[in-house]
């Protein structure tokens, strides 16, 4: 199922915007998490948790969902496929894992933001930050980005099977070419097919 080039480029643009936006928003979230972790001032901790909740629900979650969905569409709409190449499979697993952890973690962030808004200074000053989740998330997103840029080679067994099947089907079509005007057309070997 190949996408028209114009649609593919548009989808790619949306995907890059969302993915890079997710990475940047996660970095900003980490900065707030570190601020809440190291600060002893209730105002700073309160502001950081409120900021983490707002940026989490209104920036990170929508961008992550869109990046995930556009990535799926791009994989399925091009010959890369979703399960043909190891790098695509690993990127898919890591992105799914990141999105799942994000969606499971955000209710806790909301709870702590409510606590930061309503509790007195004595309790708020005992709130720590949120460093491990965004730090690990950022690491995973960087790994996925490197995979996407580098695209290391390697076909999965499913990818090898599909490729062999496609090559076989293509050879069959060429050898069954009908003669035109009494001349038998001998197909020349295609150079763009892998062995």
């Amino acid at each position, binding site marked *: 199922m190949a996408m028209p080039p114009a649609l593919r480029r548009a989808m790619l643009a949306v995907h890059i915007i969302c993915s890079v936006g997710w990475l940047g928003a996660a970095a900003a979230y980490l900065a707030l998490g570190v601020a809440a972790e190291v600060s002893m001032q209730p105002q700073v901790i309160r502001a950081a948790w409120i900021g983490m909740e707002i940026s989490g629900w209104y920036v990170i979650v929508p961008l992550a969902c869109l990046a995930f969905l556009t*990535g799926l569409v791009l994989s399925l709409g091009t010959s*890369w496929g979703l399960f043909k190449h190891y790098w*695509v499979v690993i990127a898919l697993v890591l*992105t799914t894992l990141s999105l799942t952890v994000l969606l499971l973690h955000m209710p806790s962030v909301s709870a702590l933001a*409510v*606590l930061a808004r*309503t509790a007195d200074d004595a*309790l708020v000053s005992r709130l720590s930050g949120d460093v491990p989740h965004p730090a690990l998330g950022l690491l995973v997103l960087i790994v996925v980005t490197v995979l996407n840029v580098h695209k290391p080679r*390697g*076909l999965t067994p499913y990818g090898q099977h599909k490729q062999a099947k496609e090559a076989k089907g293509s050879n069959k079509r060429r050898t069954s070419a009908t003669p035109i005007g009494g001349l038998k057309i001998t197909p020349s070997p295609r150079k763009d097919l892998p062995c």
Partner: protein
Amino acid sequence: MNDVKRQPGEASPPADASPAAKMRWTAGVPRWVKVFVITALGLVLLMIVVMLLSGGQHGPGRHVSSAGFDAPVAYSVTAASFFSADDASVLSWR
């Protein structure tokens, strides 16, 4: 994130690639995948060990230090409803 996509034809080894290069595309599990999986498993194990050593607590309560805290805790029911039983004990009324 699957950003920059190559043209469809580039998902296969280049046409002018040597037979050895083409074999590397299709033969077995690539070395980089093995290294990647082993490293990822090592990191996951390390995280589990760190979590166990730190008391195995994972949840919002982890973000609140209760040491030396004896003032009445006033926070909304909405916030409290997100905490597990363990977390609630950390944030219990004194």
